[in-house]
């Protein structure tokens, strides 16, 4: 569940952007489309609580982000918001399983290795449990990133150009997994993209 009202952001340079209101139901997928410089990444950062809006509010799962303290916001983000990026990033020094353990611990949750194992099995990474992230292929890395985004059963999943670095096969696989996993935990899935392959599949869109 995601709701934004009258969101505006002022860049340090003074330039201001206003965003259309969003209202997304749990389990739904929503595309944010826009050209370069249209502020879609800025909107994503506002939704994730990585930047503070100059005006308006973001409500995730009934909590208004602007009302949280910095530390509480960090914690809230870890527990309720999963993020997937164009390029998958990991803590390079620990294996896939430990990366997911870190995601659980940093969100203030207890370690649940069974959930990690099951999730990786579903995503076809059961064999890669003990591999360092750098040993995975690009497609595998993106799937592991999805695993990390959903491990804490978030209310909101934000994906920033998740498919634009992938070929058609991997792109459709990753999109499928994103939707499937978001649905499995009943999370709202927001995909920021300019990837035309996705516009044909998902009909809920907002153009910026």
């Amino acid at each position: 569940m995601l709701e934004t009202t009258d969101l505006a952001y002022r860049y340090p340079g003074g330039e201001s952007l206003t965003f259309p209101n969003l209202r997304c139901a749990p389990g739904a997928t929503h595309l944010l489309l826009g050209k370069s410089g249209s502020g879609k990444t800025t909107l994503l950062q506002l939704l994730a609580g990585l930047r503070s809006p100059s005006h308006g509010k973001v409500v995730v799962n009934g909590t208004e982000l602007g009302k949280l303290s910095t530390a509480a916001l960090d914690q809230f983000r870890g527990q309720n918001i999963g993020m997937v990026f164009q390029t998958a990033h990991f803590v390079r020094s620990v294996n896939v399983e430990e990366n997911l353990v870190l995601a659980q611990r940093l969100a203030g949750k207890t370690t649940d290795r069974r959930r990690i194992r099951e999730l990786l099995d579903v995503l076809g990474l059961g064999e890669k449990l003990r591999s360092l992230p750098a040993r995975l292929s690009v497609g595998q890395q993106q799937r592991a990133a999805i695993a990390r985004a959903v491990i804490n059963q978030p209310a909101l999943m934000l994906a920033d150009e998740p498919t634009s670095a992938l070929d058609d096969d991997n792109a459709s696989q990753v999109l499928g997994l994103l939707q499937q996993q978001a649905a499995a935990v009943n999370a709202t899935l927001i995909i920021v993209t300019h990837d035309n392959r996705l516009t044909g599949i998902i009909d809920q869109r907002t153009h910026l």
Partner: protein
Amino acid sequence: MNLLALAWKNLAYKPLTALLSVLLFALSIGLISLLLNLREQADEQFDNNLADIDLVVGAKGSPLELTLNSMYHVGYATGNVSLGQVKAFFNPQHPIVADAIPLSLGDNYGGYRIVGTIPKILDWYGAQVATGAAWKEDFSVTIGAEVASKLHLDVGSTFRSTHGILDEGEDNIEHDDEFKVVGVLAPSGTVLDQLILTTNQTYWHTHEDHGPEPTTPAQDTSALADHDHDHEHDHDHEHNHDHDHDHAGHDHSQIGSLLEEGAEKEITSVLVRYKNASSFQALSFPRNINENTELLAANPAYEISEVRRQFDSGQRILGILVLAITFVSALSIFIALFSSLRERRYELALLRVMGASRPKLFGLIILEGLTVAVLGYVLGLLLSHGILYLVAANIEDDFRYQLDPLRFLAAEGWLLLGALGIGFVAAVLPAIQAARTDIGEVLTSDV
């Protein structure tokens, strides 16, 4: 997976970089610990061996040499003095001198010095006889604990002494007379641990010339360490062989028996305790002796403070070196962490996305610095005590200076705090940098 485990994994991910930082840090900690230990244990040796001795009296020469030779049993003797010259020090009625002990030096056995003296020296140094008894007769010896264990001697063992104060291996000139061990001392932590004690008279038997007339002081016993003299000396001994030793029977453990001997007989030096060290007469006593007699009087406390001053200035130079190494090692931690931040900016941003607060990222980088510091500290202590262990044997032979490599100083506990401090300081800038990571800028790009 907690922060410490993650910090450890991060270091282990770049093992060579971490190793370099740890080694540099270990080098710095090791040197500091080594200096502290050498200093502490040297001070202790100096103090233990002062034995409340106020004055050392011997033949003219260097006062430092006299002190080192007579009290610490290193270096060479300044020469000998005749009993007649020093008789006054043994007078119980002496206004300044409370007590005095005669020393005869010059021979060794197995590298351990044989000291002719009276058993009163045990009381002065606070040493106890562990087995057997103190020496009484000529050629009976009581040996230090260290001598007993290193040379495998025990009560009842016999040996022949070697001329000269050092063990010279194949070139040794052996005296013919047999010494017999009558006692072994308990370890006292003083130089007595490393000495072989016998009577003063024993020296006269082993070194006495044919004929009654005394040799000039410059020759014979006074030239104990003089190599050129050795062959002539050896020669003497053959002549000497028919000389009648009184090996048994006479008790030579009291000063009285020594003073009954001829005034021309020689000893090496006299250790003196004052009645009142702060009295006016006592203060001017050494100068009086030095100016008015053929004797040299040295104040050991003063001489040792001179040695310490030398030690200190040497230590200051080393201290600067250590400071430089410490700085470089801190710099290496700083550089390693800082350059790793560049490679890890995505990772740090990711940690924030996963719910880590800024203080947590700060803590993570600090922990990485502290981990290097602690590893370096442990390795450094192993290094310094390993070196102490290796050099202990050498130092003991050369300087009569016992080192305990397994002793850890309280200062080394403080050193851990210092190490943690340096690790923290080296990591604090990178940690602040890490805490400032802007997740939005790093992870999301406006394409």
